[in-house]
C-alpha cells in the first residue's frame, strides 16, 4: 500500500492517532501530526511511498505538534518531537512541514551510523552515483532538482548515505528542498514539478519542496557505486566551467561535509578513501545556465 492508495480520510486518521508508518528507503519513520499543512504535504510528496502496518519496526517515532497554551491562538507554533524529546526550538506553525523534514534529517544523521553520512545531494545514472557535497548556497539542491528533472535518478538531495559494509550509495528518496531564488528557477526549468506552497521566513529563508519522481521512490532498494564527486560553486552570471579536482581536495570536502566521520573513526577514513579513489572528482562553477549544466553532466556520464 502506498500513500496515494490510502482510502479517503485514512491519512488524516493515521496522522492523528498512532501515526503514519512510512518507508523512506532504508528507514522507517512513524509520523504523527494534527497540522493540515503536514497532511497535505505528506499526501503530495510521499504519494508513492510505502505505508507499513504498525507491526513493522519503525526506526524513528516523530511528531510535529502545536505548542500548547496561549500559542494555540496567538502566533501559533509547531514543535518537532522525537519520541518524547523535542530536540529543537519551536517554529512558526506555517513551517510545520519543513520542520518535519529537517527533524527527520536530524534523526537519520544523528543516529544511523551504519552509514557514513555526508551533507550533500546524490543522484544516479547507469548505476553510478554523482555526489555533490556542499554547504548551503552552493546550488547543490538546484542542480540536483534540475538533474532529476532530466532523468537522473534521485537518491537524496540532502543526506548522502554510504553503507559502511558494502560502501555503496543507499537511496533515501524524499522531497527536494529548494530555497529562495532556486524555487522560481526550478519552477521555470521544470514546469511539471509538483511543488508544495512556498513557506516564507524560515531559518533558511523561503523554502519549497519538490516531490521526488515516483520512479526514484520505486527504485529505492537499488544502491549505486561511486561515480563522480562534483563540488558545485554557484556564482550568478559567471561562465560555466567543469574542471578536474585533486582527489585529496575531493576527500577533504567529503570529510568537511560528513556528519559522522569522526564517529566512524578509522573506518570512516577507509570508506571515504575508497569512494574517492573510485570516483571522478570535478569542480563545477556555474552561473545559472541550467540547460547547459545538464548537458555537461550528461556528457560526463557518457564518457565514463
Amino acid at each position: 500500500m502506498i500513500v496515494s492508495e490510502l482510502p479517503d480520510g485514512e491519512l488524516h486518521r493515521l496522522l492523528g492517532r498512532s501515526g503514519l508508518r512510512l518507508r523512506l528507503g532504508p528507514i522507517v519513520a512513524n509520523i504523527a501530526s494534527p497540522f493540515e499543512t503536514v497532511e497535505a504535504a505528506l499526501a503530495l510528496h510521499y504519494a508513492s511511498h510505502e505505508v507499513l502496518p504498525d507491526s513493522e519496526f519503525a526506526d524513528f517515532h516523530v511528531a510535529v505538534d502545536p505548542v500548547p497554551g496561549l500559542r494555540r491562538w496567538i502566533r501559533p507554533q509547531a514543535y518537532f518531537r522525537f519520541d518524547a524529546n523535542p530536540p529543537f526550538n519551536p517554529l512558526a506553525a506555517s513551517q510545520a512541514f519543513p520542520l518535519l523534514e529537517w527533524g527527520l534529517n536530524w534523526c537519520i544523521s544523528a543516529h544511523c551510523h551504519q552509514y557514513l553520512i555526508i551533507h550533500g545531494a546524490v543522484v544516479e545514472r547507469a548505476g553510478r552515483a554523482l555526489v555533490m557535497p556542499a554547504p548551503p548556497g552552493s546550488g547543490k539542491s538546484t542542480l540536483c532538482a534540475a538533474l532529476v528533472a532530466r532523468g537522473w535518478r534521485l537518491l537524496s538531495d540532502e543526506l548522502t548515505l554510504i553503507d559502511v559494509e558494502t560502501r555503496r550509495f543507499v537511496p533515501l528518496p524524499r522531497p527536494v528542498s529548494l530555497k529562495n531564488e532556486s524555487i522560481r528557477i526550478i519552477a521555470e526549468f521544470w514546469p511539471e514539478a509538483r511543488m508544495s506552497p512556498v513557506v516564507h521566513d524560515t531559518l533558511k529563508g523561503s523554502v519549497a519542496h519538490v516531490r521526488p519522481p515516483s520512479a526514484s521512490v520505486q527504485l529505492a532498494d537499488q544502491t549505486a557505486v561511486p561515480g563522480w564527486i562534483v563540488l558545485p560553486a554557484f556564482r550568478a552570471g559567471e561562465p560555466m566551467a567543469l574542471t578536474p579536482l585533486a582527489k585529496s581536495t575531493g576527500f577533504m570536502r567529503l570529510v568537511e561535509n560528513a556528519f559522522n566521520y569522526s564517529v566512524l573513526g578509522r573506518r570512516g577514513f577507509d570508506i571515504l578513501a575508497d569512494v574517492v579513489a573510485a570516483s571522478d572528482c570535478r569542480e563545477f562553477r556555474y552561473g545559472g545556465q541550467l540547460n547547459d549544466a545538464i548537458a555537461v553532466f550528461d556528457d560526463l556520464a557518457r564518457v565514463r
Partner: protein
Amino acid sequence: MKSYGMLGETLRDTDRAFTDPPHWDELVRRAREADLLGTLAHRFDASGRMVDVPRGPRKHLESAAVLGVAQHRAVAREVREILRAVDGLGFPVILLKGAGYLIANLPPSRGRLFSDVDILVPKAQLPAVESALMLAGYATTHHHPHDQRYYRRWMHELPPMQHIKRLTVIDVHHAIVPETARTHPDTPEFFRAAVPIAGWPGVAVLAPTDMVLHSATHLFHNEEFSHGLRDLVDIDQLLRHFGTDAQFWTALTERAGRMNLGRLLYYALRFTARLLGTPIPQSTMDAASRYAPGRVTGALMDRLLLDGLRPTAGLRSTRFARRLLYLRGHWLKMPVPLLAWHLTVKTFRREQQQPA
C-alpha cells in the same frame, strides 16, 4: 516487576527481549530515551545473541555501539589532555562516573554512552586547577552572574568548562554534594581512600565503596531524573562487580553510615534489587534498612522513584513524579530561602528567553 516493560526485562536478561509477538520497537525507544542503547548492544554481544536480533532494531544497537566506541576514544583522549593541563600541580585527579568507569575498566563502562568528563580535586586546589585548565583552552560556559554565583558559592563544582576547539565539556568537582546541602560527607576521606589506576599516572578513582556511594548520591541526591535508570544500571553493575568480595558489603554499609550517606545507599540497594534484580545479601539489606525513611515518606518515595526513574517522559505519571523529585532535589541541595531565590531567578529567566 513488569512496570518497566521490555527494557526492564531485557536489562535483567537479554534473552527476554525475544518475545512473541516481538516488542523491539518499544525496547529501542525506551533504551534510547534512557541512554542505554549502547549498554544493551554490549549485552547482546556478550550473550552472543546480537545475531538473533532482527535487522531493524539491530541497526540501532550497532549504531549505538559504534557511537560508544567513538565516545570512549574521545573521553580517553580528553583525560590525557586534562592530565597534561594539570601536570605538575602535585596531586592526583580523581575521575568520577563515566570517565572513571572507563579508565579503570569497570563493567558500567561497557557500551556506556557519555561524553562529559567529571573530575574531583581538593577544594584548596580549585583555583590552580581552573587556571591550568583555562590555559589549556577550557572556558567557563555559564556567563550569567547568577549562574556563576550559583556554582561558585553554593555548588560542589565549578560551572562546566568547555574546550574552545574540541567543544568537550569537563565538570570540576571539589565535593560530591553541594556546599549548601543538608548532609555533608567527609570529602577529604574520599581523597585518602582513592585508588590509583595502573597505566595512568596522576589519575585515581574512588575506592569501591565510595564509588558506589558517589553513584548513589549522584542519582538520589539530585533533581534531574531523566537519566536516572542509566545511573541505576551503573550502580547495579558496580554492586555485581565489587560484590563478589564478601568484605565489600559490610564495608559498604559501614562507610555509608560514617559518611552520612546511609539513606542514599538504602535507596540505591532497594531500587537496584527491585528494578534490576541485583543480588544483594540479606544482611546488607537489613543493615541498610536502618537508614530507611519512615513509613509515609518511604511509601511516597517508592512511588515517586518508581515513576520518575521509568524512561517514559511521554507519560504524565513520569513527568509528574519528576517534577516533584525536582523540588525534592532542590530541597536537599539548599536551605529554603536560598531555594526560593534560586527558583525565582530561574523562572523569570526562562520567560525572558522565550521569543516574543
